[in-house]
């Protein structure tokens, strides 16, 4: 269980690791229950020892800390790509995929992807979900399929992440704040921040910055009448905290292609070469629930 817990902390999100961790957890509960039954008499004697009560107190304290996640705990969990200071959960079944993201008690994001007829449940499509600022910079990857070919199958997401990593490296080399580097490129101070909290959970609603929720999806080996393998498709929706909406549908914006002249990946309009790829996804609904009263206290800044 310690091994699977460490893997869940350190490795990219994997349904196998999470499943293994859950299974070992259940196994641990069974073993503990058997152990209690087998040793009920000596255990009763233990409760007469003061050290047992100290152990119980420490256990309750640690459990509370991990449930309520005060700032130092969030800092530690934030080092993980999966756990983070958030409740972050991805589920997949035959009817679709859901991604839940709750960086603060008063904020819940749900991305509900309904599958279309071209969705192959046996060999599910590669998927990346990320946030972009108004200057089109990647600010946070929320989810990416745990597959060795994800970067290859999801080239637009990979390109965006690389741009962000380069900007971060440049900032570190020049000992600048990250947003100073971005401002130099984008020229847009308002959208220069790379801190997702500035977009998702702004401390000042009046100066909130719009951002985009993006997904890239690619079904491996999906040929069309005009293509051997249809490229990935990119969907997006803009979220404006200044005028928040609870429900929004993501729109298909196009497919990525490498622009040889500019040496970068760009999105192109879908044309008549595409057929089944357009039916991998039936719809993608973004739902954001916010409790503005709690938010205004500024208790939690988020990730």
């Amino acid at each position, binding site marked *: 269980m310690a091994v699977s817990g460490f893997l869940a902390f350190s490795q990219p999100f994997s349904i196998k690791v999470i499943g293994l961790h859950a299974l070992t957890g259940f196994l641990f509960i069974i073993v503990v229950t058997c152990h209690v039954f087998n040793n009920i008499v000596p255990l009763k004697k233990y409760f007469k020892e003061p050290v047992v009560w100290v152990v119980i107190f420490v256990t309750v304290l640690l459990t509370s800390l991990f449930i309520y996640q005060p700032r130092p705990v969030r800092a530690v969990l934030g080092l993980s790509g999966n756990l983070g200071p958030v409740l972050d959960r991805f589920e997949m079944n035959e009817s679709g995929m859901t991604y839940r993201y709750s960086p603060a008690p008063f904020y819940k994001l749900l991305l509900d992807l309904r599958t279309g007829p071209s969705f192959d449940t046996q060999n599910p499509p590669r998927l990346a979900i990320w946030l972009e600022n108004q200057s089109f910079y990647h600010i946070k990857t929320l989810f990416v399929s745990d597959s060795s070919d994800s970067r290859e199958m999801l080239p637009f997401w990979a390109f965006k992440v690389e741009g962000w990593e380069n900007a971060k490296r440049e900032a570190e080399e020049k000992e600048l704040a990250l947003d100073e580097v971005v401002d130099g490129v984008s020229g847009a101070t308002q959208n220069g921040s790379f801190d997702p909290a500035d977009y998702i959970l702004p401390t000042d609603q009046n100066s909130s910055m719009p951002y985009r929720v993006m997904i890239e999806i690619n079904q491996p080996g999906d040929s069309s009448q005009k293509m051997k393998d249809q490229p990935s498709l990119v969907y997006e929706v803009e979220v404006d905290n200044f005028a928040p909406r609870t429900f929004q549908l993501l729109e298909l914006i196009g497919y990525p292609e490498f622009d040889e002249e500019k040496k970068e990946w*760009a*999105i192109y*309009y879908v044309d008549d070469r595409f057929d089944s790829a357009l039916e991998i996804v039936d719809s993608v609904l973004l739902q954001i629930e916010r409790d503005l009263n709690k938010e205004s206290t500024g208790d939690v800044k988020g990730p």
Partner: protein
Amino acid sequence: MKSSQNGNHRRGFLQKSLLGASSFAGLNIASSTHVSAESVSQADEPEITNEVDVLVVGGGSAGTIAAIQSGRAGAKTMLVERNLQLGGTTTTGGVAFPGLFDAWGKQVIAGIGWELVKESVELDGGKLPDFAKVPRAHWHNQVHLNQFIFALLAEEKCREASVELAYYEFPSSINKTENGWQVDCLGFGTRRRVFCKQIIDCTGGAEVVGLLGYERLREDERQPGSYLFKLGSPHNPAGQQLHRLYVHGADSTNSRTVTVANITGRQSILQKVRDKKMRLMHMQPETGFRESFRILGETLITVKDYTSGRLFDDAVSYAFYPVDLHTKRGVKPKPLKPGTVPSIPLSALIPKGSQNLIVAGRCVSSDRLANSGLRVQASCMGMGQSAGVAAALAAKTQTTPLKVPLADIHGLLRKHGAIIPTKS
């Protein structure tokens, strides 16, 4: 060796002397070309009279295209422009990145405006945006062009369409006649009387409509104008963007308000030159104005019509741009929803209750938010071509633009390369 050195020295001396002489005598003039202007008939007469089918007032984005279209449709056409060149906001204002001709991967505005823009880019050795690429911001699909080439080509196309150009003139009074209008224009040293069957008002602020007393709409506070200039590095037309200075309160209502806006903008630019201690490398002759009067037309395009992409029954052209209202705090464009392409009805170009009069450009009958998207150059060019067709056909058939059969307008527009809004 010695003589060679002497020879080099002598050649160097001669070269320096020649360069010195030429730079002293001619500064930057490398060569001069001699041309002869045609002699102007009745040049000594301050009062002249013209009789035309269609009079276009204002030679900006809409007016230039309207005049070319009217001329190509066979109507005897005159274009009166208060300034020194054609192109308006694109040239005099310097906003030389017209848009938007494409929406969602398809061209929605073509015809004469697109022909002019495309040829300008080609002649300048420039490159059009890749319209198959999804623009990550609306301005990625604006076409960057050389404002000077654009002005020259616009003038050439007017001449080729037999449009008579009258610069530095503006209508001072307009009266109805049996067959249309008598328009008295004033220019320096010129008093021109024009008898025409149809007027196309492309003044931006519906000045002709105002002179005739038809109802116009105007907000108490208008969007700022932009004064474009360049400090430090040389101006590279169609290359780097110019610097932009917001002139709040800029109003193109009349010569007095335009004068104030221009002086305000220029004073501020002068202050920047002093503060930044940089050379002023380029400055447009005038503020680019965004908003003044709009007409109250037979139909008023609302922001709901615009953002929903309403297809009007009498639609003559498309428009495409975000709702783009500039304020004192800047601008926050609201993009249209994917797939949405607004349309412009003929009846929104007709001042309510008027006859033999049509407008084109940013004075189109619309509410303020709809107008903030409709006012851009490509949409104005589309309107201009539609107005040119409607006016030419109306003049030919002795009727008013609103009574010209829509099928005839659509047919002639298609013949001249325009895209007509249809149910997809």
